[in-house]
């Protein structure tokens, strides 16, 4: 059927198509077999484009002196592992999966930050009780999603994150019961960041073709 069709025309069209895709602004990394919407852009700019910058900033923060708090050490350890994974994935030309994995590492780092805030005597002011109460309800709802995200991740290494998310939620509730609204707020945020990390990892697993 294509016997009479000039071969040079086919080669030209294929070459142009590959070139266009390769020069697309949303695709800074090498092309992979990722699924997903490749047209979206956030208000804060393209997170994927900023991947190297984000990874670099995170690594700089890891290089700071290790915190004495063992809980923070655990969280930073997990964060560091996922940042490394994100870097590896980035190098395998899977930018969206790398972005989501790096977002998980960032979330874990933010969780560690919230624990750090508790140690600061002159930390952020204590929010009103009603606001903390509403926030805790939302955190509780997020912790209910943790199991589903873990199931989607297909990696038992993420299981401690689920356990930690629940533990910090419990601490938030206990702090609230003690009228320690600042503690409740920070522990709640820590729990929320852990679930967010799980969600990001689940998104990464969903985007990976081999994950399903």
């Amino acid at each position, binding site marked *: 059927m294509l016997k009479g069709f000039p071969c040079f025309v086919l080669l030209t069209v294929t070459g142009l198509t590959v070139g266009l895709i390769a020069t697309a602004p949303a695709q800074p990394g090498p092309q992979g077999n*990722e*699924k*997903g*919407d*490749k047209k*979206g*852009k*956030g*208000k*804060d700019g*393209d*997170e*994927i484009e900023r991947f190297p910058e984000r990874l670099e900033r995170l690594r700089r923060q890891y290089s700071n002196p290790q915190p004495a708090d063992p809980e923070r050490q655990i969280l930073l350890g997990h964060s560091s592992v996922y940042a490394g994974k994100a870097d590896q994935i980035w190098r395998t030309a899977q930018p*969206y999966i790398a972005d*989501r994995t790096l*977002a998980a590492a960032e979330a874990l780092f933010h969780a560690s930050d919230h624990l750090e805030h508790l140690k600061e005597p002159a930390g952020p002011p204590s929010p009103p009780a009603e606001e903390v109460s509403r926030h805790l309800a*939302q955190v509780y*709802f*997020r912790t*209910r*999603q943790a199991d*589903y*995200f873990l199931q*989607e991740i297909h990696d038992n290494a993420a299981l401690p994150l689920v356990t930690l998310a629940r533990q910090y939620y419990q601490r938030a509730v206990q702090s609230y019961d003690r009228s320690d609204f600042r503690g409740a707020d920070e522990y709640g945020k820590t729990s929320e960041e852990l679930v967010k990390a799980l*969600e990001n990892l*689940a*998104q990464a*697993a*969903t*985007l990976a073709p081999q994950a399903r």
Partner: protein
Amino acid sequence: MRSLFKRRLQLQLLFILLAAVLVASLSVLLISDAVESAEGVVLADAGRTLTAAVSELDQQYQDRVTADSVWQTLPVPAKDTSLRGVSQAVLRSYPGVEGGYYDGAHFLGYSYPTHDTGGNKTDVPAAELDDILATISQSRGSGTAQRTLHGQHDIVVIEAKSEGHNAFASWTMKRLAGRSDPGSHRREILLSALVLAALISIAGTLATGVLLQRGIVQITSGLSALQSDFSHRLPERNDELGEISHSINRMAEARQKLETELRREDRLRAVGRLVAGIAHEIRNPLNSIRLSIQYLERRIGGTGVSAEDLRPVIEEVDRLSALLTNLLTFQKTRQPELLDRPVAPVVQKCVSLVHPQADARSIEIHVETGPPGLEARFDPEQLTQMLMNLLLNAIEVAGQNGTINVRLEQRGTTARIEVHDSGPGLTDEQTENLFEAFYTTKASGTGLGLAVSRELATAMGGGLHYRNDQPGATFEIELPAIEHANANDIDR
């Protein structure tokens, strides 16, 4: 109306039947209403559940989007995963509810956490896909929309919520057990059983009514037959009415025995009266004969005996002989030889036979022979005997210059011969004993004439009656008339 109220049993049965039909109909209606009402309650409850679930889904979506600055940049599968986490968490609190989101091009975050498979169902139900999209589309106009689909096996309720004309929408869906589910099937079986039981009840009532009616008709007709024939027996039955029939039969047997006994006693009384009458009747002629013989005895010694002297003896002997003849007739009436023939010639003959006696007393006899060719079934000899007896009696009581009217007529199936005399008639006491054997008002009568005549009339299938028509008396002989058509046939 009166006859209707007489049939109270039928009315009661009819009432019971109508009540049974009414109860059955009301039961079916009530059950249907209850089922529909329950279905309405379940649908309303499902609607409220879906409204709450879709509102919560929508709220959680809003929270999720506002909390994540990069949400819009996320690829669809990533959004799908995040939103499935949301819907899983939300819908876990709503058993039987499934749902998710729609961004105008894709279904996102679909989940059914309480599904039998353990909540791993992630594919949007294909069968309802179009209806879900239609509900979402409808919600873009009014904010929310709800749709109920009545399927063959289940009822599906879908609710969607959109923020104005925004393409993004939340939706929830719930399946309800429909009329074809096992519970509904059981209800249908029970309903059918109720209808069947009602029909059996109605049929049973009808059957009972018909059987009761038949039994009552049998007993009623049996009792009617018993009025004329005590040998008749009601048919035996095995039900309660059979016991009544059995009791009636026993009563009839007892009555028949009693009747036989009474007849026997009546006959004995008649024999007693007969003996008394014979004794009386024989004693008078014997006295007369004795006197005549004594007179002859005295005359034998004198101038001799003449033939006139012996006449009283002969007359009294003749009278005794006639008495014995009547007695024999009364005692042993021969079976009538019934023949179909005209009645008028017999009447004419009897009237002509008594004319000399009537003329001797200047009595006029008027005869009306009625419709020409009137025929009846009778024994001519016995009818002649009856009619002669009545005519001679009439001549005796009519008196000098009296009149006798003989009229022949047909009344229905009866040929009637009336003999009316211009005599004084009968007193009540005489009327009461008129047909008793040996009862007579005449000095020389035997008192057997009318008794014998009535026996003869009854034996021919007719009767003999007395009617007190002041002035005078009327005797009626009734005979079974022959149908006019037959009479015409004979004429031809």
